[in-house]
């Protein structure tokens, strides 16, 4: 059931927000919802669902001020994005603390991406501070901003417009507690973005999931090719299945193994890293062409080798968009260099495979 929401005037599904809330706190500016600090099974299931693309919309949390614990007029204020997964990350780290959380409108997008796109912005923070009457809620004049919001925020401007000073907290919510205990000083490690195996694994699994549909397109193409090549329908189904297997392999090498082994594969360009693994895959596949029902002649096999390597390289290049250490200028340079080569390679591969299968 959709209801009009008083927090930000947006229509949100109140009943889906309710599980995050445990009671309200009375303050001079009215009742404020108190957030739970423990995640339950419902949160976990929801996270899995939203990661694979289900229910993305309800992951927009209503903006405004929330409480954690029993905050007073002296309690600190944390600013965060209105993406539920972001809010989950923050609230689960605050158990036993008494704080205010100011959720600003980032259109349901995480802090770093929203800062890059300009929705986690100085203007939006100023707007929410004023709208939530923060100056009546707390005595101090300071808000703690997530460090990754910095690309979108001019902290020094906040004070000019609201009287509130913006202080940058750590990158990760899990460091908030230590940051607070340490008189709001973040260590070097807390200020650095990482790209650990775990983080690479998390994004690459999602990448693979998003590409699976293309493997089924490959299957259809191989099916048609077998059919046109004169095979019976039932045989074409089977041939196409085995033909497609190595392409599933190319998806795995390019979108999963390349990200996973990123620091261990030589070369700086992501496409070249993907190509290296693609070459290894091609080598294995072309050693056993009969297993994959490939026509045994050199044009077909060469075509498959080029295609598999190119796909793996392309997926490697695509991963620059998910990495935390690539720059726009760098990706631009790499793309301009390698895309023409990939186009040429794809055309050659297609011609070789089609000709090899038909003649």
């Amino acid at each position, binding site marked *: 059931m959709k209801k009009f929401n008083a927090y930000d005037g947006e229509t949100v599904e109140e009943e889906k927000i309710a599980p995050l809330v445990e009671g309200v706190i009375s303050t001079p500016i009215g009742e404020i919802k108190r957030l739970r600090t423990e995640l339950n099974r419902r949160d976990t299931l929801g996270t899995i669902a939203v990661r694979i693309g289900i229910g993305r919309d309800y992951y927009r949390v209503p903006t405004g001020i929330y409480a954690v614990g029993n905050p007073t007029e002296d309690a600190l204020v944390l600013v965060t994005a209105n993406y539920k997964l972001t809010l989950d990350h923050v609230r689960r780290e605050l158990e036993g603390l008494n704080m205010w959380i100011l959720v600003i409108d980032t259109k349901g997008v995480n802090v770093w*991406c929203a*800062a*890059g*796109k300009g929705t986690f912005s100085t203007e939006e923070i100023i707007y929410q501070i004023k709208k939530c009457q923060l100056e009546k809620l707390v005595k101090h004049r300071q808000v703690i901003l997530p*460090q*990754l919001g*910095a*690309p*979108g*925020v*001019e*902290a*020094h401007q906040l004070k000019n417009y609201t009287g509130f000073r913006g202080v*940058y907290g750590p*990158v990760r919510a899990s460091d908030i507690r230590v940051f607070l205990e340490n008189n709001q000083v*973040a260590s*070097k490690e807390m*200020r*650095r*973005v990482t*790209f650990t195996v775990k983080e690479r694994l998390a994004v690459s699994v999602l990448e693979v999931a998003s590409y699976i549909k293309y493997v089924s397109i490959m299957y259809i193409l191989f099916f048609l090719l077998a059919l046109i090549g004169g095979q019976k329908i039932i045989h074409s189904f089977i041939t196409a299945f085995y033909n497609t297997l190595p392409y599933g392999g190319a998806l795995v090498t390019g979108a999963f193994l390349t990200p996973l082994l*990123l*620091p261990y594969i030589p070369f*700086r*360009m992501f496409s070249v890293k993907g190509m290296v693994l693609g070459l290894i895959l091609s080598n294995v596949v072309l050693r056993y062409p009969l297993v994959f029902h490939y026509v045994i002649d050199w044009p077909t096999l060469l075509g498959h080798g080029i295609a598999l390597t190119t796909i793996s390289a392309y997926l490697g290049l695509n991963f620059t*968009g998910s*990495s*935390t*250490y*690539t*720059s*726009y*200028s*760098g*990706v*631009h*340079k*790499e793309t301009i260099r390698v895309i023409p080569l990939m186009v040429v390679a794809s055309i050659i591969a297609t011609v070789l495979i089609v000709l090899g299968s038909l003649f």
Partner: protein
Amino acid sequence: MNYLKNVAAIRLDQDKCIGCGICLEVCPHGVFEMLQGKANFHDKDLCIECGACDRNCPVKAIEVKSGVG
């Protein structure tokens, strides 16, 4: 982990720098260091052009051509 060398579109004007250190604070990759009271490049190749330093520098001593993301 390092990406391509000598491509980062970032400029630092040390004459303008007042040594407040906010760039060291907001940079997620440790591009800057403090040298004799002024910001200095520790490793320019680590820059991902997020633009955090550019936005938060109160004297506009840093310029980044930042992309989206």
